[in-house]
């Protein structure tokens, strides 16, 4: 069982997620491939963390380790003060391809993880979360009848239906068109404010990372390492045309520029 004990003397417990010296290797054709190297990340309750990096930099693996879908051997990964040993109801997850089960109606998809509840409680939870994401009129629709943005809303509702303390989002808006994406970014911020859920989101969209993240984790590729964690200004980062927004953007761009062009000197000067 997980609980949210706080300030019990152990410093680790003030963090909802605590990752220390995490290394991860995969065996490909019996050859070890280093995926993550010395990852250190602490997430506080109610924070919104965004992770940006090249595709293949191991950020999805990192997220799956956080929720317990992928095992780790080397380092510490704690959720709510306990070492992660597998998926748990306190940790929800939203994938890029919404992964709604096509044979279930939206209400049943949202209630998919609520097996432990009574029928009435389950119905109540489903209704509540469909309202939260603005899909209460689509409870009896099938996923194929929904647009991409609506499907992703339903997936978010499913991720939140268990009332998790943490919601992990793996490029949830990556497949949406630009306008829907901006709409969804506003929605997820509203939901986070309403629910107070701690969120960790992977994205390859730098604007999205700045707009949503209280802190932005910049990762390099092969092996995945944290290059920097940028703390954003809570007001200025929500204005896409502010000077500070542009500065964050430049800073993150430069990391990737350095990565691809290998102009290390330039990066050091900045």
């Amino acid at each position, binding site marked *: 069982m997980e609980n949210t004990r706080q300030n019990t003397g152990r410093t680790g417990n003030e963090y909802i997620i605590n990752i220390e010296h995490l290394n991860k290797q995969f065996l490909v054709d019996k050859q070890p491939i280093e995926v993550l190297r010395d990852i250190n990340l602490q997430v506080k309750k109610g924070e919104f963390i965004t992770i940006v990096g090249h595709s293949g930099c191991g950020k999805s693996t990192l997220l799956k380790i956080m*929720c317990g*879908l992928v095992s780790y051997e080397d380092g510490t990964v704690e959720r709510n003060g306990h070492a992660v040993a*597998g*998926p*748990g109801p306190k940790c929800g*997850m939203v*994938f890029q*391809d919404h*992964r709604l*089960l*096509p*044979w*279930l109606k939206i209400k049943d998809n949202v209630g*998919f*993880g609520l*097996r432990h509840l009574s029928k009435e409680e389950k119905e109540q939870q489903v209704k509540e979360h469909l309202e939260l994401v603005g899909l209460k009129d689509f409870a009896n629709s*099938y*996923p*194929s*009848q929904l647009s991409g943005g609506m499907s992703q809303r339903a997936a978010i509702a499913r991720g939140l239906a268990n009332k998790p303390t943490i919601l992990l989002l793996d490029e949830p808006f990556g497949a949406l068109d630009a306008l829907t994406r901006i709409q969804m970014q506003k929605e997820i911020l509203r939901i986070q404010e309403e629910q107070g859920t701690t969120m960790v989101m992977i994205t390859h969209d730098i604007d999205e990372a700045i707009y949503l993240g209280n802190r932005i984790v910049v990762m390099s590729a092969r092996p995945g390492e944290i290059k920097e964690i940028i703390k954003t200004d809570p007001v200025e980062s929500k204005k896409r045309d502010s000077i500070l927004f542009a500065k964050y953007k430049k800073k993150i761009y430069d990391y990737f520029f350095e990565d691809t062009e290998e102009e290390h000197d330039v990066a050091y000067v900045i």
Partner: protein
Amino acid sequence: MKTGKYILVALIVPVIILVLWYIATTFGSLPASILPGQQMVGNAFIEMTSNGQLQGDLMISLVRVVKGFLASAITGVFLGSVMGMSSKMQNLLLPTITVIRQIPMVAWIPLIILWSGIGESSKVIIIMIAAVFPILVNTLSGIESTPDGYAEVARLYKLGKWKTFTKVYLPHALPQILVGLKLGLGVSWMAVVASELIAASTGIGYRMNEARSLMKSDKVIVCMIVIGLIGIIMDKLISLLFNQFTPWVNLQKNSK
């Protein structure tokens, strides 16, 4: 309007065949024992139905189909699921099954007759051998094609192995299992007729063979037409029934 046009187009070829048949039997010099006229076939149909013979034969054949089809449906879905869920079981069984599949259904008939005579059980066994493979193969492929992402969702919500099968793999495979069952039913009908033609003392296939030995080509043709019609009716009925089980499938088609 559109379906009306569709039916009209579909009727062109049958009408041409009927006209050619009419011309051949009215103006040609074919003996009636080779190609009877349409009038003769109609009379034979009335004769065979009025004394209840045709209905009786059909009933016997249909009961055999139902028994054989149910047995092959249970076996096929079970084996297909086991092999789809466990690569060990698949490695154990699939090579043998693939080899056995190559033997045509009619080639089993001599051996089955040696083993269990020409009674009911031999018919059911032959139907089973014929129908089990399309059901098994479609079940297996439906289970195997389940995206890993869905299985990951099941793991995320800590579903056990059995729940993962019933809540994720089985529903994903269901449309394809139903395709397999539909094919299996069609094959069952063919298998029962074939087995009755070769060795039987009752059933629609037996009736046809008996009519042939008496040079009653009109009765042979009545049987052929009835077999075709029953086949089509079973196919349409099972499609209608199965569409009820997979309401999400047609939605996907309509939305595209």
